């Protein structure tokens, strides 16, 4: 691949070494989702499914235009619809494209115990390398935005790749290209932030005093950002968290040492090609194993 070799990694799961990131001159990228321009047409969903060869089972009508009704291993992006009556009593239909935010400080990557299963490229994209994934579900717990989903079929975790295959050959992600109204833009993070600034000025001129950019600093900023008409109340947009945080359990390694150790055993069995034999005490109890399995099952059950 042209420029997304591992030299471009800046972070890598379960690895103490910071990769050399030889090409750190590379510009950070960002996808900007301007909610005020979005018409909720789901072209992004459609293009994502088509490009990434994802076809969820056909569901049911569940009382909303939101379909499928949740992210899944086959649904990497999803329009969420919220009917909101504002202070003036006027209706606003707040429609938000949900999916991986590509955090600068990715909780999924921090939580992941499988070496190299989650990587972050120098351009900021957080990618799941599925053949290294052990399906433990820790990325799900680690994600402040509830994005990754574990497949029942192959017990691996999936989410938006920001079309790393397209970006690697110099193309924009499929959702960005398709978006009919230009509500999804793609470029360097600097450019996207500047463009967001212009949009916010326009929105303020149209009476949205609290228009603003969603680029939460608690996760180091994100490589998927939103322009919101009500940036003071992101929760209005189908529960976009106002203060996303990587859970304390993931941040504080102590708290998760046990389950991680347990999964580490499973991982060692799966990832045989390292040719290293596990040495030292195996102190995982049956209780720990049960706990670990439960985490895995909960996650897979949630995926239709």
């Amino acid at each position, binding site marked *: *691949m042209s420029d*997304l*070799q*591992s*030299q471009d*990694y800046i972070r890598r799961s*379960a*690895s*103490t*070494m910071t*990769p*050399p990131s030889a090409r750190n001159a590379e510009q950070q990228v960002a996808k900007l989702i301007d909610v005020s321009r979005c018409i909720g*047409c*789901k*072209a992004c*969903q*459609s*293009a994502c*499914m*088509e*490009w990434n060869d994802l076809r969820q089972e056909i569901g049911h009508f569940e009382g909303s235009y939101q379909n499928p009704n949740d992210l899944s291993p086959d649904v990497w992006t999803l329009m969420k619809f919220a009917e909101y009556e504002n202070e003036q009593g006027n209706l606003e239909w707040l429609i938000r494209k949900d999916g991986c935010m590509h955090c600068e400080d990715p909780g999924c990557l921090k939580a992941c*115990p499988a*070496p*190299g299963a989650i*990587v972050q490229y120098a351009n900021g994209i957080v*990618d799941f*390398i599925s*053949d*290294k994934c052990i399906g433990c579900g820790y990325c799900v717990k680690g994600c402040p935005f509830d994005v990754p989903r574990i497949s029942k079929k192959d017990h691996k975790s999936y989410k938006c*790749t920001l079309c*790393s*295959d*397209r970006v*690697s*050959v110099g193309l924009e992600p*499929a959702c960005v*290209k*398709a*978006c*009919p109204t*230009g509500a999804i833009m793609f470029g360097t993070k600097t450019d996207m932030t500047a463009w967001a600034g212009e949009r916010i000025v326009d929105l303020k001129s149209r009476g949205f005093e609290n228009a603003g950019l969603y680029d939460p600093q608690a996760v180091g900023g994100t490589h998927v950002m939103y322009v919101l008409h009500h940036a003071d109340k992101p929760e209005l947009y189908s529960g976009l968290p106002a203060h996303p945080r990587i859970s304390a359990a993931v941040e504080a*390694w*102590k708290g998760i*040492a*046990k389950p*991680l*150790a347990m999964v*580490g*055993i499973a*991982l*060692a069995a799966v990832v045989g090609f*390292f040719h*290293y*034999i*596990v*040495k*030292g005490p*195996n*102190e995982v*109890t049956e209780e720990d194993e049960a706990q670990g399995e439960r985490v895995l099952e909960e996650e897979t059950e949630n995926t239709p």
Partner: protein
Amino acid sequence: MSMTRREFIKFTGLGLAASSIGALGFGASGEAQAAAVRPFKLTHATETRNTCTYCSVACGILIYSMGDRAKNARSNIIHIEGDPDHPVNRGTLCPKGAALLDVVHAPTRLKTPRYRPPGGTEFKEVSWDFALDRIARLMKDDRDKNFIARNANGDTVNRWTSVGMLAASASSSETSYLTWKAVRSMGMVVFDNQARV
């Protein structure tokens, strides 16, 4: 039990792996290749310019097919996306257009003529000759029977009202013109299209 993350890594042997790979230089390792992004799927696809079949925004599309149109290969459409040169859609597509691939390859695409006799409970596959010979026969017999050459006043009206046609809304103008010629030459007047719905 209590264990630091570093200890965890050591236990599972991965700390060593990371160190070694780090020492080797990350980019050259086989692991890095394996971890590389999904290969770009259009590298050797053939690109054909076309127009979306749905609404009359008429978005320009690029159809990507497998195969280079060599004599011995049958093309298969693998992907469709917006034509960035097109002045209206500028590469964008709506949720229908972005999913055109799935209508091209719909399992309910028809592959062969089928016929259902009067009172029949199933379709059966038939040849084109059977279908078109039979349709022509039925049409001619009815036209001969019900064609109105003159009205009550004796004026020439040359119309045929007992067989009608609804014309396609997504077929080309060239198809439309040929259809118009054929149908009107027979005097057919119960003839309409989808403009109203």
